[in-house]
């Protein structure tokens, strides 16, 4: 039995009061509940405050490039299906620089769980607008406020029929841990967007701003109902739904690859006998 101690405790470089601390807790809780050993877990991240998260627990870590965690996770999972592959990164990283990979990962239905720490701002680079920044959010570059319409990732993911779409709030750790667990269990692409206050650069979407608005989806909510999920995922404003918004049973990316066998690809012997045949086919 894995315990939360197995995942260690580390000093972080985050601000006191930052929502990231709670997300870290929720991730650990979920991994313990899933009974995964640190060595079975690969955490992949980009660059940003959120992307530092994998350094603060025990696990295999690939802390790569800003925006590029999904391609890394896609391939790592494919060559070693025994790993639980979890992506953790910010809204800027995943929806901004990395937007194209999000579209592709949803379409592939690659079996990774993406936890997006959505603080609606670029934290590490000191307060620029992110794709999720609200209309009118004032930054140095937008003294009159941002006017691009905010990116609703859950809506996009539902519209594209992603495998699993959920939203959590860093202020509800256990609820969030549950969502992450379900996301990891899902055989396919799982988006877990987490609303996360940034105490240093987002003075609009604060803890209480989120706390007042978030409501848990009722048990009666049917995540299999696409039309309804569209409407739920579209909700934003006075009331913000959290919970599992949508899910389906599309086969995962690796399940389509007939060449993948029981044994993880990385552990398979190279088929030199086959190669000889192939080479001779060029006669």
């Amino acid at each position, binding site marked *: 039995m894995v315990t939360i101690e197995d995942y260690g405790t580390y000093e972080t470089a985050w601000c006191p009061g930052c929502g990231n601390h709670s997300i870290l807790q929720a991730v650990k809780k979920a991994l313990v509940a899933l009974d995964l050993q640190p060595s079975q877990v690969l955490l992949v991240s980009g660059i940003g405050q959120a992307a530092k998260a994998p350094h603060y627990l025990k696990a295999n870590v690939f802390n790569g490039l800003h925006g590029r965690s999904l391609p890394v996770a896609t391939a790592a999972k494919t060559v070693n299906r025994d790993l639980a592959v979890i992506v953790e990164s910010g809204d800027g990283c995943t929806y901004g620089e990395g937007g194209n990979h999000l579209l592709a990962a949803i379409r592939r239905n690659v079996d990774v769980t993406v936890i997006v720490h959505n603080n609606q701002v670029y934290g590490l680079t000191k307060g620029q607008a992110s794709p999720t920044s609200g209309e009118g959010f004032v930054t140095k570059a937008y003294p009159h406020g941002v006017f691009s319409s905010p990116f609703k990732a859950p809506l996009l993911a539902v519209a594209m029929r992603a495998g699993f779409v959920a939203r959590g709030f860093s202020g509800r750790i256990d609820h969030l841990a549950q969502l992450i667990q379900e996301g990891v269990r899902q055989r396919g692409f799982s988006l877990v967007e987490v609303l996360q206050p940034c105490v240093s650069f987002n003075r609009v979407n604060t803890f209480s701003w989120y706390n007042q608005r978030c409501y848990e989806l009722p048990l009666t909510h049917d995540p299999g109902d696409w039309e309804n999920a569209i409407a739920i995922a579209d909700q934003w404003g006075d009331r913000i739904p959290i919970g599992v918004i949508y899910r389906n049973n599309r086969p995962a990316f690796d399940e389509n690859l007939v*060449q993948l066998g029981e044994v993880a690809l990385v552990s398979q012997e190279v088929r030199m006998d086959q190669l000889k045949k192939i080479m001779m086919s060029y006669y």
Partner: protein
Amino acid sequence: MRDGPSRPKAVNIVIGGEAGQGLITVGDILTRTLVRAGYSVVVTQSYQSRIRGGHNTFTVRVGSEEILGPQEPIDILMALNMDTVHFHQHELSPQGTVLVDEKWGLEGNAIFAVPYEELGSQKFSGILALGVVGAMLGLEEERFSGALEQFLGKRGDQVLQENLASLKSGFSWMSSRSGPMHKLSPPRYAGTRLTLNGNDAIALGALAAGMKWCSFYPMTPATSIAETLAIHSQAMGIVVEQAEDEIAAINMALGASFAGAPAMVATSGGGFALMTEAVSLAGMIETPLVIVVAQRPGPSTGLPTRTEQSDLEFVLHSGHGEFPRAIFAPGSVEQCFHTTRQAFELAEALHGPVFVLTDQFLADSYRSVEPFDLEQLSPVRTCQVLSEDTPHQVYAITQSGISHRLIPGLSAQCVAAYSAERLAIADSDEHDEYGHLTEDLTIRKRMVDKRLSKMNEILARTIPPEVAGDEAADLMLLCWGSTRGAVWEAADTLRSQGLRVATMHLSQVWPIVPDTVLGHLQNAREVICIESNATGQMAKIIRRETGFHISKKILRYDGLPLTPEFVLRQIAEV
């Protein structure tokens, strides 16, 4: 060093027509037939960036002795349309023949009109012409029909029979008319030879190295490497994935490699540009990666289907910051295979990015190749070195700069006691020995030194330049990559004219080991650097690395491959 004779006798056959007229099919069958018959070939494919129309050629230079490079004068011009005659008539050799359709009503010395309509359907004029050419070369018809069967077998019996009939018809028409006008001498080699182009050989080299992951985004002239691998992916049990863009392709490959699967990407200049951020990442996280860059003329989209060698400096300096790398530049199809294999070995040994730099000419150039001795080769192993004693620190600072890789989650078959502490950590930030992010500037300096010291290992393994010809020569011709054949043959010709000529070819263009280069250059009375680019990139690198200044250069940058004739013309000028 070996003495070179004058250029080997060869017949240069050019098939010309519009895209979509099937000239590649005809060219492929002709090539394969010749190779199977034991001849040596060098194919040059020249095509436009369009699917139908325009003007393309497929050129097969064939000889009974070993031939290395392309040739300009045309001995047999198979014109599938009138434009071809128009465009290439002036390139005919003195004994050249132009195969045309009788219907076109063309006349002239070299014109050889074939009554295609009479001999069969117009639809099969390519195959009819193939029969005619086969007879011209004095080969047996069965040789062609065998290749045709192999090629068209899967398209159904009817198609095959029609084609075979056309072939026969062309053959007998020609045989009945005259003797073989371009008769080939019996081939020197007997054993089995494969028909491979540069990209085929790169794919096979990767497979022989144990590659398990290739991600790509289509880009001419690199696409066929990944597509060839994909065709064999089921049999080999590997994964080939078309990515959403080049950035995804290379980051995927790094993810696969990090997780323990030898990985490769293949692209061309513009796509490679998008990969440069991750090249630097590979350097930082010390993850093996093979990057094939198949060059075409730039800048930007340039001439997407033509050839050039203008990305050497870009590849050499690609990625921000400083980290070691190696760059191979195969000069033949065999070298495509071997250097690609070596690239995987080296990437695994040095834990970092290794490049294979090829170009459109070599990518598409079919050659006759002896089968590789696969028994002698063993694939790269990513996890063989892990043991109980393997240190926990993925980036342990060692004398050589090379640490021990850890593979995430890899279970008992690799490491008996894979403890919870032995985790694979990679971070694009500066990191400590465990791989965790650090802002400690003392560690920073030690990590830079560690990474850069791996250059010694690379230097020790660097392929020395291939030097041939006269010692203390009057003239040394320096080249790299795909131009080897053209330069070698040009040198042979010069020697036959009485000059003392040496050649030097670099199949590894980085690092440059001054000791292996400088002596040879200094020994020659004069050195000319020959490159398919406009600025003499290799000459600049040689000067930077050795201090040796090469002021004479032969540079081609119109998109066509260097030929011995081009080199000779330019030498006459310089």
